């Protein structure tokens, strides 16, 4: 009998690869062992890579009949104890929305990669967009909170894939990687660290007797320990409003208690979850806020502005949701104007306007999808802001 090859889930070393492949490898390094998906441009390379790699690490890849089935099967696999994911783009993420809500109310850890393309509808299948920002936050009906991350390089696509799984496990929530076609089809250097240097988090396991286990009894941190199906805990899981046992209770009081906790477990941890990057912000008078691929052009624009003597700085959002409202409120105190650059008709700018409690100009540098901002396009908005 041939010896079983060692599990090679972390491809330590230097690679020259795409954002999509980096995401696949990042998810594997994070411990992902289940992928359920449906092909869609520009995300398909993630599914292709996972179909090759998951069996090698004793994981399961399955191509489902549509995106609705994909997210449903991911939720099921997560309850069976596997770190689970799917990857898709605009039309697919729209189809997944109902079950993302099921994931939120049943507190099911999973990662959903959205490689954004231009929308609405079929839109621009092969070209970049950032128009799903508000959908990521509000896409499923009812009140809930979500975590969304936006990488701006191939390296960060890998790093944030690990972060996404860690956050999903820690907060028992679906996490959306809100990336884009440009990042995912771009080739760059990727350095994968040794396995020993990758810090992983796993969902809390129940302690105490199985008989007394209540499926949705939260600890003081608002997060309930999660039992694995098949171990005799008799979990009770429903998409209906439920009490600590998981039993449906259809009244306003239970709804208030449950939905408040679902929102608070994320909102009250905003600072802990928050990841941002600052570039020349300390003495800035014009603050540029951007994320994803657009933040690379924004950084160039800030440098060009500095050459022209305009004190510009960049705040790059890595965590998009929960939104770093407090951070932006405090940064706004020191600046004269804000420019928000994004590939949509003005989505993040709405959150920025809500965060800024000061009467300063807040300008939008918008593109509607299909191409990335040039640094000069954002520079012209910085110049406009500096004259106001």
């Amino acid at each position, binding site marked *: 009998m041939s010896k079983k090859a060692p599990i090679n889930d972390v491809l330590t070393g230097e690679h020259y690869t795409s954002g999509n492949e980096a995401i696949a490898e990042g998810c594997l390094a994070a411990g992902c062992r289940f992928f*359920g998906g449906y092909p869609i441009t520009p995300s398909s390379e993630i599914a292709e890579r996972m179909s090759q790699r998951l069996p090698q690490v004793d994981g399961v890849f399955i191509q489902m009949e549509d995106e609705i089935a994909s997210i*449903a099967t991911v939720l*099921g696999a997560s309850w069976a104890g596997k770190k689970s994911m799917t990857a898709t783009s605009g039309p697919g993420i729209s189809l997944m929305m109902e*079950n993302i809500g099921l994931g939120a109310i049943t507190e099911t850890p999973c990662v959903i990669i959205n490689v954004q393309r231009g929308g609405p509808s079929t839109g621009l299948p092969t070209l970049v967009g950032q128009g799903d920002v508000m959908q990521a936050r509000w896409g499923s009906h009812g009140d809930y909170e979500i975590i969304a991350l936006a990488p701006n390089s191939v390296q960060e696509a890998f790093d944030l894939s690990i972060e996404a799984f860690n956050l999903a496990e820690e907060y028992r929530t679906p996490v959306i990687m809100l990336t884009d076609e440009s990042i995912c089809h771009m080739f760059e250097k990727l350095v994968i660290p040794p396995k020993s240097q990758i810090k992983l988090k796993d969902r809390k396991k129940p302690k105490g007797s199985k008989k007394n286990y209540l499926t949705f009894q939260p600890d003081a941190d608002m997060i309930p320990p999660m039992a694995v*199906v098949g171990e005799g805990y008799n979990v*009770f*899981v429903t998409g209906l409003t439920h009490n600590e046992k998981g039993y449906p209770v259809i009244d306003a009081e239970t709804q208030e208690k449950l939905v408040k906790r679902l929102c608070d477990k994320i909102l009250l941890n905003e600072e802990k979850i928050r990841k941002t990057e600052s570039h020349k912000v300390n003495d800035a008078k014009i603050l540029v806020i951007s994320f994803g691929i657009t933040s690379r052009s924004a950084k160039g624009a800030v440098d060009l502005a500095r050459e022209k003597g305009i004190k510009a700085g960049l705040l790059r959002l890595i965590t998009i949701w929960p939104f770093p409202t407090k951070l932006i409120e405090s940064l706004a105190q020191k600046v004269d104007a804000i420019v928000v650059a994004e590939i949509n008709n003005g989505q993040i700018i709405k959150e920025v306007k809500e965060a800024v409690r000061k009467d300063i100009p807040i300008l939008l540098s918008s593109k509607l999808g299909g191409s990335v901002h040039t640094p000069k396009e954002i520079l012209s908005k910085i110049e406009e802001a500096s004259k106001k």
Partner: protein
Amino acid sequence: MTVAEKKIDKSLLEAKKHPMDDLLRWDRLPHVWCSGCGLGSVLSCFIHAIANSGIPKEKFAIVSGIGCTGRASGYINLDVFHTTHGRAIPFAIGLKLANPKLNVIVFSGDGDLFAIGGNHIIHAARRNADITVICCNNFVYGMTGGQLAPTTPIDAWSSTSPYGNVEQSFNLCHLVYSAGANFVARWTSLDARRLQESMEQAIKNKGFSFIEALIPCPTTFGRRNNYENGLKMLEFFRDNTIIKNGIDPKDAEIRLGDKIVVGKFIDKPDQLTLDDRLARITKKSHE
């Protein structure tokens, strides 16, 4: 002295504990179903089948969708999931593939499984996913008030076909068999023994197994179609069903006015399942 005034000897109740008690969540009873509904009978057959299967209880996971039948999982004292409308099957496939040692059973209704969830059931059968699907067919959308379902017989009345149904209905057994199911049976809720026996076989059978349980819904279907109560519908089942075991499911279509064919139609044991094939792939990838 009325019954309520009689002193109840609690020790007597304890002594008469039903053998199936630990498979039900007594703190969730009474159930939501109407009087005359067949779901209680089917649920009873189901928990007996589970108990008789000899499979350890913790190995079961029961998944339901939305609707009257969708509530069934919530009365069972096992790992249970009440998912979104139509999506019980892909959720169940996720459970099964992530842990092939689980015995995963979908217990849901005809509208949930064959209208909104129709795409998933044919693909689950095609893949030969090793799950059991129990479909309670009441010919109608019960929970929402008796609207037209893909199982409503042509010409039958429903709250959204007030002049009679103009659409052909699905023959569920034929559909899943055509798509690749290994075990296919249909019984009414009146055929309790046979239904339970088929459930036991389906649960133990490898591969995609399907059971259609025809049930009365006097409240939303019967009353509009000249069966004013549950008893009348059961009498209809008694007088208008014929057992034809082993028949090709294509010859078991349900039409108003015709005899309804019930029986164990298909039983193909030991077929290679989706998880068998995935395990082969895993082995291959290590070479």
